[in-house]
């Protein structure tokens, strides 16, 4: 029996610059970097020094607070530099890859036949734990926890997001093995969200409960699916894994190799060639973009939740997109007049853009206004397809009122669930940032 998650509230943003379904090999990056700040709240303890020779899959560092959570090198090579910031915080571990890749040999394992404990041990010992995200709090999963269920969403509804099904196309076997691995990590079920309209092989995946997802963004957000199927209560843990990472997990169990292959879709109206590139986790941005774009923001991830990266720096650990949009650092005269500048998308009916539902919009990074006090009500609910009061929750986060945050459902959300609120709200409130701070407060106060 299939399960359905149908969402009405939300927003489908049609933007220019979607990736064509063409996959090309990106040239091997000159250097590759693992950036510990990508792993929220992880304090790294290094196990290797500058100049060390590594195989792909060799341990780089582990978490100071949980030595079972290990982070490994995506490539074989030499550690070039360990870049530190303020208070000697480690920012980047830069590796020069070998021209011939050598892999650390892990034992092969059939997850369905192996004992659950052995599977779990293998996952964390080989560094695959870095792909397991925990809810609540949106942090890396703790090896000591047992999640009540695991969710994978292979449908990404975010604007200009990479097609997960396209990415998985040639990795279906590994993906299936990865799902089998996940079933051993939880006493509950493994759920796989797929596009209801999909006709691909993804619906034939075994050992996972298939969720047919329908609706505008954020229907594809794993958080929305969890909320509707197995909501998180206080004290409970749910793990989530991104689809391509499930395939990496599966590949390690099948071949014994940590093959940190990452598919990156270059998208956005400032991108010259919008297609998919096959590369390694932590590659340089310039290994994919051959030319430095002018007055353009490069975002690792999608335009709603990604992080800005510099042209001479590295792509983040998680995420399948490099989104390129122009910086919007120009003035617009009388741009606040209603029904003007209808070429800029607005969910509000104070712009006429709603008359053209099929138009594809060009976007830039202009704030289109300034931050103001929260005045308008009811607009956040329109893009929040959960039984949660978003404005009340945001206010509780701002006030740092833990009891209120708990009772309003802070355990069920992570910043990405508020991305559309960032986008649509009239007062230009940074909802994702506020929720992140609220979650961080919960981590320190409740744990």
């Amino acid at each position, binding site marked *: 029996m299939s399960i359905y998650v149908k969402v009405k509230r939300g927003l489908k943003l049609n933007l220019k610059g979607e990736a064509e379904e063409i996959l090309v090999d990106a040239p091997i990056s000159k250097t590759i970097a693992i950036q510990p700040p990508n792993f929220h709240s992880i304090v790294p303890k290094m196990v290797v020094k500058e100049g060390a020779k590594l195989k792909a899959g060799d341990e780089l560092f582990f978490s100071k607070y949980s030595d079972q959570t290990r982070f490994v090198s995506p490539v074989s090579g030499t550690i070039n530099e360990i870049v530190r910031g303020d208070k000697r915080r480690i920012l980047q571990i830069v590796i020069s890859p070998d021209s011939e890749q050598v892999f650390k040999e892990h034992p092969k394992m059939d997850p369905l036949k192996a004992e659950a404990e052995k599977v779990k041990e293998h996952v964390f010992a080989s560094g695959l734990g870095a792909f397991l995200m925990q809810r609540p709090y949106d942090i890396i999963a703790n090896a000591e926890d047992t999640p009540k269920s695991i969710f994978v969403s292979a449908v990404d509804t975010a604007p200009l997001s990479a097609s997960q099904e396209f990415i998985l196309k040639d990795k279906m076997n590994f993906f299936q093995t990865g799902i089998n691995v996940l079933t051993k990590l939880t006493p509950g079920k493994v759920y796989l969200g797929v596009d209801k309209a999909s006709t691909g092989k993804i619906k034939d995946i075994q050992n996972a409960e298939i969720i047919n997802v329908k609706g505008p963004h954020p229907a594809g957000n794993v958080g929305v699916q969890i909320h509707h199927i197995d909501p998180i*209560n*206080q004290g409970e843990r749910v793990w989530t894994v991104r689809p391509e990472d499930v395939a990496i997990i599966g590949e390690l169990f099948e071949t014994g190799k940590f093959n940190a292959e990452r598919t990156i879709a270059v998208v956005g109206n400032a991108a010259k060639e919008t297609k998919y590139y096959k590369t390694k986790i932590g590659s340089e941005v310039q290994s994919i973009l051959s030319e430095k774009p002018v007055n353009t*923001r490069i*975002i690792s991830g999608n*335009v*709603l939740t*990604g992080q*800005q990266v510099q042209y001479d720096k590295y792509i983040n650990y998680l995420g399948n997109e490099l*989104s390129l*949009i122009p910086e919007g*650092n120009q*003035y*617009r*005269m*009388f741009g*606040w*007049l*209603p029904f003007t*500048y209808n070429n*800029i*998308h*607005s969910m*509000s*009916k*104070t*712009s006429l853009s709603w008359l053209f539902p099929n138009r594809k919009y060009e*976007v*830039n*990074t*202009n*704030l*289109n*206004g*300034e931050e*103001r*006090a*929260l*005045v*308008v*009500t*009811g*607009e956040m*609910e329109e893009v929040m397809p959960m039984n*949660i*009061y978003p*404005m*009340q929750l945001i206010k509780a986060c701002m006030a740092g009122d833990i009891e209120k945050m708990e*009772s309003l*459902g802070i355990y069920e959300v992570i910043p990405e669930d508020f*991305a559309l609120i*960032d*986008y*649509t709200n*009239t*007062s*230009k409130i*940074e*909802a*994702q*940032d506020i929720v992140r701070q609220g979650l961080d407060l919960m981590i320190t106060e409740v744990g």
Partner: protein
Amino acid sequence: MNWIRQKLDQAKEPFQPGNKFEKFAPAINALDTFLFVPNHTTKKGAHIRDAVDLKRTMIMVVLALVPALIFGMWNTGYQHFSQTGEEFGFMEAFIHGAWKIVPMIAVSYGVGLALEFAFAVMRGHEVNEGYLVTGLLIPMIMPVDIPLWMVALSVIFAVLIGKEAFGGTGMDILNPALTARAFAFFAYPTYMSGNEVWVSEAATLDSVSGETILGTLAAGNDVAYNSAYMFTGMIPGSISETSTLCILVGALLIVLTKVADWRIIVGGVLGAAAMGLLLNALPAMGVEGNALTNFAWYNHLIVGGFAFGIVFMATDPVSAAQTMKGKWIYGILIGLTAILIRTLNPAYPEGIMLSILLMNVFAPTIDHYVVESNVKMRKKRMQTQTVKTA
């Protein structure tokens, strides 16, 4: 455009951080953002943003007020000249009204914005656009002959006590425009009620008297207007409250653009109609009632300030209930109490002002109970979950 931009950048120079007038930056910034949407780009969170902003939203309400305002100006002249018996055309009537009303608007904006700018400078935040609407609403709900200094004083009271004392835009409990009117109503009752204030110059000219319909009913007299007059608004009253037709045009604009929540308006109309029907039914139940309770329920919806209040005041998102269910409850309660106060308390023939202010106070409580049901759902889910695992 570039030329203006350059001049503006030059003018802004002394206000930059570290320069002489740094503290007054919000003032010049307000001028700048009035002319240009700034070149600010996203720093945190989503990298792209919707085209809507608070200025656009507020201007939408101002646009929606324009029909009622223009009609109010004309009606002021119409009421005056039709009683003095002078010959007049559309323009004479309009100019007579504008001559009285434009200075009121100027005073309201002048005093209010000066205070807003002062608070922005003092608190170091940008000037919020909320006053663009409040500043226009205040004169629109006053009697036309109120002295300008009273307008100024009401504005000061509304901005200081009604808004800034609670933390400024977005924090106020009571609708600021209604706070101004309530202040004037209780501080200067002779200028705000009775039968000599509703028509221009009624107090000075013997030939002119102006009683509102509700006032007439409260005094137990017969009403000289039919429903068509009441609906189009050719009746005495506060400047812009009279024309239900023009208010409906405005309502359509702000409801369709979703600037105002239709739930509050529909709820309010339903509540008022229900109360009107109930009161109309009193004689059938053996209770005599009075001229106001016996006034047809549909007429209650189109006389006095009800339509204006429910469309433009009750929908103020800050002082209204903020949850969807809460908005329904809030709207219905306003409708019910507005007609109740209007009919049963002859001292206050205009009930909508008091009923909205009353529900402003109760709105957080309404929201609390609505949100509480969500909290309870979560707690209950947690309990059943623990039972299952135990």
